[in-house]
């Protein structure tokens, strides 16, 4: 039986509910997410189990950070206090899981939740625009 599985990623980066539902289905089938990518997600074999997942966003975190910031680690400590285990980080996205049957959700107020998503989107868009500008500039130099 193979230990690793790759699956096509067909979710929006900001579709929290769909991502959580997919990860819960996969855990129930015996697969735990271990790596996220723009096109493929990788899962590792586990015992099938009923887990709850939560997807959150930490504006300012990125894949270029050498290590998570103190603030990001503090937020993760808060979540751990309430029984949510960090599974992995992917840029500003953090994925947590818990085996508690009726956990308190990580986010219970929609206002700061939406504010986090909004700030994350703004920072990512600015980063992508900067990369596009550099590409266009280097192409222009070659002409």
């Amino acid at each position, binding site marked *: 039986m193979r230990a690793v599985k790759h699956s096509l990623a067909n979710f929006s980066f900001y579709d929290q509910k769909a991502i959580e539902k997919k990860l819960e289905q996969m855990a129930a089938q015996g697969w735990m997410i271990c790596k996220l990518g723009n096109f493929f997600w990788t899962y590792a074999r586990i015992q099938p189990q009923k887990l709850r997942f*939560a997807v959150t966003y930490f504006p300012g975190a990125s894949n270029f950070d050498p290590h998570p910031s103190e603030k990001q680690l*503090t937020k993760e400590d*808060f979540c751990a*206090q309430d029984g949510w285990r960090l599974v992995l980080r992917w840029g500003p996205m953090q994925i947590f899981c818990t085996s508690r049957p009726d956990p308190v959700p990580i986010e219970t*107020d929609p206002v700061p939740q939406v504010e986090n998503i909004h700030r994350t989107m703004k920072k990512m868009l600015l980063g992508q625009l900067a990369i596009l500008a550099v590409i266009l500039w280097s192409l222009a130099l070659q002409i």
Partner: protein
Amino acid sequence: MPREKFKTLTEQMFYILLCLHQECRGVDILERVRAMTAGRVSIGSGTLYDLLEQFAAEGMIRETRAEGRRRSYIIAEKGRQMLEREYQRLCLQTADYEHLLGKGGNYESRQA
């Protein structure tokens, strides 16, 4: 025109500020609020972190102690004023309800 931030406090904001009338570690607020409300109000750990950051940035609370990543906070004067304002607003709301429906009254019996 967008609503002024913290013009009204949500239930979770209210209880976090109430909890911080005494110095308290950030992570301990989760259990304190549950105990204070007999489990009626539960604050998400991520929401708690976000609101503490916002309150600190607005000057509504201040950090009193830091032991590594474990920080303690206490309410500041601005936070006390906002809490008092919210309490007065809720009292007025209760008074309006009691004026219209009476204490313990219900809407259906009034309409009949």
